[in-house]
């Protein structure tokens, strides 16, 4: 969105307030929510992708080598990935200030 939402006028709205930019909510940094963050030990990662499957945000992506890593822009720190990882490659740590 070009304009910040608080500056939108009635004329900026599409007919019926239809939103025509698919997925534009993805600019919202849900990563600001978390109080703990996942840390990845790639020596244990077997690239199974279970963390990717089970993440409610869908924010696990693959590094160039194929290891799975959380995108901290979106990661809310729920801990599911750490809980479900079969090799214990992910651990949750307190989020820094």
């Amino acid at each position, binding site marked *: 969105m070009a304009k910040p939402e608080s500056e939108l006028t009635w*004329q900026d709205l*599409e007919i*019926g307030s*239809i*939103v*025509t930019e698919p997925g534009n909510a993805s600019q919202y940094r849900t990563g600001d929510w978390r109080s703990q963050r996942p840390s990845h030990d790639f020596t244990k990662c077997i690239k199974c992708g279970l963390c990717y499957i089970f993440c409610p945000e869908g924010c696990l992506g693959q590094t160039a080598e194929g290891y799975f890593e959380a995108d901290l822009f979106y990661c809310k720190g729920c801990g599911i990935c750490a809980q479900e990882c079969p090799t214990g490659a992910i651990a949750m740590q307190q989020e820094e200030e």
Partner: protein
Amino acid sequence: MAQRLGMEVSVALGEAVKLADADVIAAYPITPQTHIVEHLAELVADGELDAEYIPVESEHSAMSACLGAAASGARTFTASAGQGLELMHEVLYVASSMRLPIVMAVANRALSAPLSVWGDHSDAMAVRDTGWIQLFTENGQEVVDQVLCAFRIAEDRRVLLPVMVHLDGFHLSHVIEPITLPEQTQVEQFLGTNQYPLPLHPDKPVAMGDFGPPFIYTETKWAQEVNLRKSKEVVLECWQEFGRTFKRHYQPVEGYHSEDARVLLLTMGSFSETAMAAIDRMRQNGQEVGLIRLRLWRPFPFSEFRRAVKNAELLIVLDRAISFGGPGGPVCSEIRSALYNQEKRPKIVGFVGGLGGRDITVDGFEQIITRGIEIGQTGSEQEFEIFGVRE
């Protein structure tokens, strides 16, 4: 060659929807609209109208299915009345605020309790604020004509709003009247095809129906209001084009001997035709009375209405609905509001009558006008007069 035939108005309405080549009809039966949806079912069953006929399980679902159909870009129609219109109440607001071009015929019916299948305008008045374009009709020909216009107005890119065509339950829906159905080719040319600009389709994903927090809700409502007001231009344009094509002319406010009348009666719906007979009779007796008929109800035709009453000294408004504990008739209170700031305005006297299918004869209208003139001179303690109640 278009023929003039005697037809039941509901059936003629169905034929109009067929001429318009509607795509989706979501139908739930309720007296006195049943003949409309029944005839449409026959037309679809016989292959005369190629449409998807959805026999929904309630009026709420009827209007909801219409939302979906219109959002996918289909030409959409439904009909209801009374309790049915009330059951879909919340959906009506959604249809207009989401700018979905749906056409609905309403066979105006009284609201329970007590249960009444008979005609009055209480169902229409209950949905005044829903943001729909609303038209009232006087006779069967008008019903057909306005249904056709409704599709054109609703689907116009400048409008994209749902349109309600009101016809009096039983008094119009169930009577046989002489009606000329236009030719199919003429209608096709007049209506064109529905080109909804942002339909739901995987080729161009859109999100419809986001929620609106306080920071934006006002803007969405103002946009809606501006759009509804501006749609009046399109209504007038449509009627002009209709007049050129089909040689029948419609105005938002129509007068009958109203230019020079000192006393005006205002009616809506089929009562207008009976009132005209009363006007004729009274004028023969030398009284300077006239009639104003409101055809366009929403958006309210402020300028046309003010022009129509500017020479009158007394305006008698007949409401066919009652707003309990308030100023009486909803139409009368809107009339008063429309004229309040005018420098020169007539005295206004409000009557409520014809509730629950109670007929008002030509004599009755004479009585109303006479009594209205009386109140205009002496004033009244009451906010309004109820006509025809046995006390």
